[in-house]
């Protein structure tokens, strides 16, 4: 088997997408469709944040595409005045892969949920991440099937009582960030629907990242799983649970910054009191570490019960993208030999009948 160095340049996520000098506003990104989510749904907040954030990219609106699968979150593209496709359940990453590969001039986004991305679309998600296609995946995690009215999802906790688990779920939930990092994702971030500033920061970085970005957004479903993330929205509780990550800074949190993250046994990371371990022993956050172990350990700091929740960018590394690589090979082949359909049809083993 031959393997060759395909040495690819690394550039920014939007470097090939045409920009505009025309000022844009959030309302330019609102479509004329009536937004239909339940009153109080976290999706409204995310939609508003995205509509406000997109103008800051300065891209031509016609060069932005949102592709979704199926579910509540997947109605998202209808409400954005960009190109959009409400596609096949779980398959948005595949359609986005095709689009991003053939069209480097587009900023391609995927909107999905915990059901769409992690149940039916688990396969498509992990391979898009592994391939490092230049697409940005927003995973709205409400830990429930909302559109189908309240059955447990792959992120519902063990013991959770839902319409399809009347005696409590016996399933072990996925940790979406651990899954993404295990699938070699080059960008992994997390934000809360209610934290507009934090969400926008992660989205900004994801947009600029060249390669697959997975952003998990904790999103409240007020009808079928209301309050799932309330402990992160109560100021006192949030202070002890949320672990904001800032590149280059020691990882600290708590009402008085009294907690921090240290290196643990067996190569993992642990939460500790800063007073017990000393500031010098705090882990300084570096999302660019190539080895996935570090980001994986970050994703394992907390449990399903949200006792410790790192937010921000866990991992952001540069590595060659699938779409750049595929295009480079096509260009190389074209440069090496002029495309010749007739020659291809004729092949090498043909003959002429007199």
């Amino acid at each position, binding site marked *: 088997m031959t393997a060759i160095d395909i040495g690819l340049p690394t550039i920014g996520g939007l470097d090939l997408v045409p920009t505009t000098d025309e000022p844009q506003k959030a309302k330019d990104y609102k479509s004329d469709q009536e937004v239909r989510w339940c009153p109080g749904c976290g999706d409204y907040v995310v939609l508003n944040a995205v509509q406000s954030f997109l103008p800051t990219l300065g891209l031509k609106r*016609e060069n932005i595409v949102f592709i979704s699968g199926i579910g509540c979150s997947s109605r998202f593209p209808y409400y954005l005045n960009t190109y959009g496709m409400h596609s096949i359940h779980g398959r948005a990453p595949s359609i986005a892969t095709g689009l991003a590969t053939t069209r480097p001039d587009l900023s391609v986004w995927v909107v999905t949920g915990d059901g769409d991305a992690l149940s039916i679309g688990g396969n498509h998600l992990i391979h898009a991440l592994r391939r490092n296609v230049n697409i940005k995946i927003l995973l709205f995690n409400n830990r429930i099937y909302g559109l189908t009215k309240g059955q447990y999802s792959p992120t519902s906790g063990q013991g959770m009582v839902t319409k399809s688990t009347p005696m409590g779920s016996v399933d072990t939930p996925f940790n979406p960030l651990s899954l993404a990092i295990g699938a070699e994702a080059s960008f992994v971030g997390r934000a809360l629907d209610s934290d507009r500033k934090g969400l926008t920061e992660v989205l900004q970085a994801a947009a600029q990242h060249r390669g697959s970005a997975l952003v998990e957004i904790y999103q409240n479903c007020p009808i079928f799983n209301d309050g799932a993330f309330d402990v992160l929205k109560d100021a006192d509780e949030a202070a002890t649970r949320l672990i904001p990550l800032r590149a280059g800074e020691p990882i600290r949190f708590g009402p008085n910054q009294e907690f921090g993250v240290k290196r643990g046994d067996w190569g993992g990371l642990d939460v500790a009191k800063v007073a017990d371990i000393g500031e010098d022993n705090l882990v300084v956050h570096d999302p660019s570490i190539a080895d996935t172990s570090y980001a994986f350990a970050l994703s394992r700091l907390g449990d399903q019960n949200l006792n410790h929740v790192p937010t921000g960018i866990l991992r952001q590394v540069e590595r060659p993208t699938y779409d750049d690589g595929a295009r480079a090979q096509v260009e190389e082949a074209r440069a090496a030999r002029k495309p010749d359909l007739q020659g291809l049809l004729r092949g090498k083993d043909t003959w002429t009948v007199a």
Partner: protein
Amino acid sequence: MVELPLVVIDVQRGGPSTGLPTKTEQADLLQAMYGRNGESPVPIIAPLSPADCFDAAVEATRIALKYRTPVLLLSDGAIANGSEPWLIPDVDELPDLRVEFASEPNADNDSGEFWPYVRDPETLARAWAVPGTPGLQHRIGGLEKADKTGHISYDPDNHDKMVRLRQAKVDGIDVPDLVVDDPSGGKARVLALGWGSSFGPIGAACRRVRKLGLPIAQAHLRHLNPLPANLGDILRSYDKVVVPEMNLGQLALLLRAKYLVDVHSHTKVAGLPFKAEELQNLFSEIITGVTTEAAK
């Protein structure tokens, strides 16, 4: 209902499930016709020999692009594993399949909007604007869309209209008339009708039968959806129509339902192609039967 071009190639083999790998069958016809939820017609093309695969694929692509629809190219194991001489086409003579994408707003009011479900009056193909086209941003997807505007629509009458429009679009595809081969100059009272890889053995059997002095006509369907416009008249002009298939009578079922013609279904699902001899015997028996019946 995005109504975008797509060519799906199904090389049928023995089923169901993993069935008989490497063996042949023609048992996916009804799946190709109806195997989806909802009323969702798609055109179906079936190559009749290894050499025909190239032209059938070009034809499938032509229809997909012209009518903005998925197309099923229904080949089978006997064709895929078969070979025959193929006259290499001159690329300059291949059809021009370039598509004209929408570049301007097309709303039929003064809104200046782009409406993705405005249709070509002749083909019923919808307007197709690709990402990157300024001012034509729009959304497509699996939810039913309002006629013309493409907005999400739950209107009962609109859904009824859109279902019928999509059916009419597929029904209206330009399919060439079916050509019947009958060297007897119209004396044949029996028609052998097939589709797919059985073209070879059916043709060989017809030649053998004719050598025995029994007239028989042969026709082979490349377009299975929509069927050629002259098919009904052809079926009704013979005393007997024999339909050999490597399934349990799927084309026969479609023909009976659509044309109310009681075709003679001959089926075999052994994973092997028909043999000229077995079809020769079948055709001879049927011709003799028809002749005897006529003499009474």
